[in-house]
């Protein structure tokens, strides 16, 4: 019988050995595949066992995102809290179970959960895991100034629109606000309440500063003037005759104001045309340069590509001509695009506040466009700086001389032109207004793009306010920009 017993023993051992093979398979080869499965709740829960990094405003003290700890099923889980509520919502986004993530919470998830490839972080989080202690993510310090951000939100209260403030020499985002917005603390459990708004428009989750598409109106004249001066085809003193309209395709295109009796300036030069935002002047500039040249300069400023920023790519859009909702890059611009209307910001132009702020900041920075960024530093849980974001040059769309001539023209616009509402006593302000007709009678999208001080710019601001009945860039948007610049420079 012993032979059979030996056989039986071997058989039993083979069965058990098969189990070892089985468990090895699931825990090694199949491991990654299982982890990627959508319905794998363990991965979901595990993501809540990580103490996500905090997010601070530029002062390093104002906490924008932090965690609350809860004991559930014997495990310590961390849930996100946003002490500043809606003020930073559009930039920071949210991290929840039911609706996943948006904003920096999405795009910097790797850093915030300590799973980024940085050596220091890898060591630390692996060690934490081995020790069995809580994995802590990296902290993020933003470039956004808390006071300026709160002011921007307050100024937008009750309106629909957005504000982007940049530091021209570095590309730091000093403020980025949009209204209406939402309270990220309510997203998980009270989504309907989180997105409720008293503002006269919807889309509370949309970051209008980077994903809102607006007609630029006369603010686009900054781009046209850049092309005019930079190509050497015009100077600020180039003479124009303004009869109150310009002729395009044999038809009159009238200046702003009463259609029956439009503003008429007579003999002017390019500088005056900019100062008073005379459409006929720019119409003729556009016709002279051709749509291709104007679009080429738009392109050099970064139109037609999604502006770089740390927020998720799908929360930003490119500026440019749009046709049937799609970005339209004409192959033959001189036949496909109306050069006169393009030159003063009509045609099918759609731009984002971020892009216009970048145009303003580039002019302020003597023609050098800095890469916009809103993360200053990333800190390890121990407080060491893991990554420090150095200013980076993005492009040089115009010559220094062009930029300085434009600055002068923008200063004149604030001193005695359309943008007088942005004057700050004792500080030289440069700015350009914009008022785009929405097509509904007397309802306008109002713009102001500006920077200050003009001789040594420290802040560039783009403001857009939607749906203003009888409002203009100079009366609605300019005062907002003024208060922000004043607060920033004081």
């Amino acid at each position, binding site marked *: *019988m*012993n*032979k*059979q*017993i*030996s*056989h*039986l*023993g071997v*058989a*039993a*051992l083979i*069965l*058990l*050995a*098969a*189990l*070892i093979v*089985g*468990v*090895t*398979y*699931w*825990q*090694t080869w*199949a*491991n990654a595949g*299982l*982890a990627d*499965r959508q*319905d*794998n*709740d*363990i*991965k*979901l*829960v*595990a993501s*809540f*066992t990580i103490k996500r990094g905090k997010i601070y405003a530029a002062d390093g003290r104002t906490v924008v995102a932090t965690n609350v700890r809860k004991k*559930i*099923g*014997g*495990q310590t*889980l961390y849930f996100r809290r946003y002490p500043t509520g809606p003020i930073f919502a559009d930039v920071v986004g949210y991290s929840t*179970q039911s609706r996943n993530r948006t904003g920096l919470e999405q795009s910097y998830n790797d850093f915030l959960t300590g799973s980024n490839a940085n050596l220091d972080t890898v060591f630390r989080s692996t060690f934490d895991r*081995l020790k*069995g202690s809580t994995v802590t993510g990296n902290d993020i310090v933003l470039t956004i100034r808390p006071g300026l951000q709160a002011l921007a939100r307050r100024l937008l209260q009750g309106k629909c629109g957005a504000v982007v403030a940049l530091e021209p020499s570095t590309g730091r985002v000093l403020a980025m606000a949009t209204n209406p917005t939402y309270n990220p603390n309510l997203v998980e459990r009270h989504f309907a309440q989180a997105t409720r708004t008293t503002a006269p428009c919807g889309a509370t989750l949309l970051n209008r500063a980077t994903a809102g598409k607006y007609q630029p109106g006369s603010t686009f004249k900054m781009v046209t003037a850049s092309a005019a001066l930079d190509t050497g085809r015009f100077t600020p003193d180039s003479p124009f005759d303004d009869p109150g309209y310009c002729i395009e395709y044999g038809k009159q295109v009238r200046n702003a104001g009463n259609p029956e009796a439009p503003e008429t300036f007579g003999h002017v030069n390019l500088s005056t045309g900019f100062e008073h935002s005379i459409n006929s002047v720019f119409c003729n500039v556009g016709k002279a340069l051709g749509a291709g040249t104007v679009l080429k300069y738009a392109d050099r400023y970064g139109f037609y590509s999604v502006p770089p920023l740390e927020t998720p790519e799908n929360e930003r859009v490119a500026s440019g001509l749009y046709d049937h909702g799609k970005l339209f890059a004409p192959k033959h611009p001189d036949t496909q695009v109306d050069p006169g209307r393009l030159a003063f910001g009509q045609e099918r132009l759609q731009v984002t506040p971020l892009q216009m702020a970048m145009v303003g900041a580039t002019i302020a920075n003597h023609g050098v466009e800095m890469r916009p960024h809103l993360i200053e530093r990333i800190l390890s849980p121990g407080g060491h700086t893991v990554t420090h974001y150095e200013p980076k040059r993005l492009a040089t769309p115009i010559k220094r001389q062009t930029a300085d001539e434009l600055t002068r023209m923008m200063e004149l616009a604030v001193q005695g032109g359309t943008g007088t509402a942005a004057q700050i006593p004792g500080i030289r302000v440069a700015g350009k207004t914009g008022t785009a007709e929405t097509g509904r009678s007397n309802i306008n999208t109002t713009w102001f793009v500006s920077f200050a001080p003009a001789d040594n710019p420290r802040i560039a601001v783009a403001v857009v306010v939607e749906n203003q009945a009888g409002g203009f860039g100079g009366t609605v948007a300019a005062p907002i920009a003024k208060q922000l610049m004043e607060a920033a420079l004081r």
Partner: protein
Amino acid sequence: MIAVGVLTAVGFASVYIARQDVVSTSSLAYAGFFLLLYLAAHLVARYTVPFADPYLLPIAGLLTAIGLTEIYRLHPDDAFKQGTWIVVAVGLFALTLFLLRYDYRQLESYKYVFGLTAIGLLLLPILPVLGLTVNGARLWVHLGPLRFQPGELAKIALIIFLAGYMREKREVLAQGRLKDWGPLLVIWVLAILVLLETRDLGGGLLYFGIFLAMLYVATARIAYVAAGFGLFLVGAIGVWKITPHVQERVTIWLHPWTTHKVYCPLSGEPALRQNCQSFQLVKSLYSIGHGGYAGTGLGKGTFSTIDGHPLIPGASTDFIFSVISQEIGLIGAAGLLLVYMIFVLRGMRIALLAQDGFSKLLAAGLTFGFALQTFIIVGGVLRVIPLTGITLPLVSYGGSSVVANFLLLAGLLLVSNRANREALR
């Protein structure tokens, strides 16, 4: 015998450390109490079966300790109940050793009693008042607050019967005379019918496997095993054809995940299979996969959702292995399986050393039963074979299982004691 002490100490040291990790100091009392319990069990064994194999009791201790730790981790209240059952089991273990310490072979004379007892026990849950259906299988008997799975004890009784009967009839069985096969076949067919009725597929596979294994040991006829396998396959296909329950098990085994919604018999509506019938298996696989090489660490695993609901239904019973795999990883899970292998090696060694046919058959049957039960449940959890609900010996939560497996252990120690004593003489 020193090994006993060392292994027990190591076993408890690990439990002790683990417990500290899981919760606070109250668990220290647990550890101390169980150390005393095993010391007592050891002393009883020393007194009653001084020549017995020194590895088996510590291994059993280690396994129950691992199980208890994980049960404690999942549901502290259940751990207390399980602890109580372990006390009962150790008590019965001691009683068995004490009563049968001179000669367990007297059991052989009562083989038919055991055979009938096995059938009786298996039939109990079908009785209208006592029976109870849990998770689609009618396996339980309840008497007031007490619930019991008699099938576990039936396993032991069946092995004793088979050992006795086959010892007596092994020569004639080998010749293949129909007359002598009669009682065996009758009991076997009855058992399978009962199992079909109770829908306990895991149990059916276990009893049938034990039967074939013991038949092989007794007759040395591979042909019987082959015939048995054939019979089993025919039976299995037949059962598969007629029972939707079985068909479902096989479907879940082969295709636990679907990319399109399929009919879900639980809700009656279309759903992804991983959200319906194979929910438990799939969640358990995620748990195992999450363990990786080293595991999450004891007490650090994830077994509930963010809202606090349990992730794997039945985690402490049928799916205890996936809990262990997640917390102690591949190293620990493979280690646990190695412990089972050592148990099986020692058990087979006892069967080899035993002097008489009854003892050999008994030890081989008990050991193989232990191994096969482990294979059926762990194999099911790991998708090696279709999943059928059955307990992981000595580790799973469940009183009847612990009691039955301690009786199994007592049996092995008794055989071993006698064999070693004879050898020394």
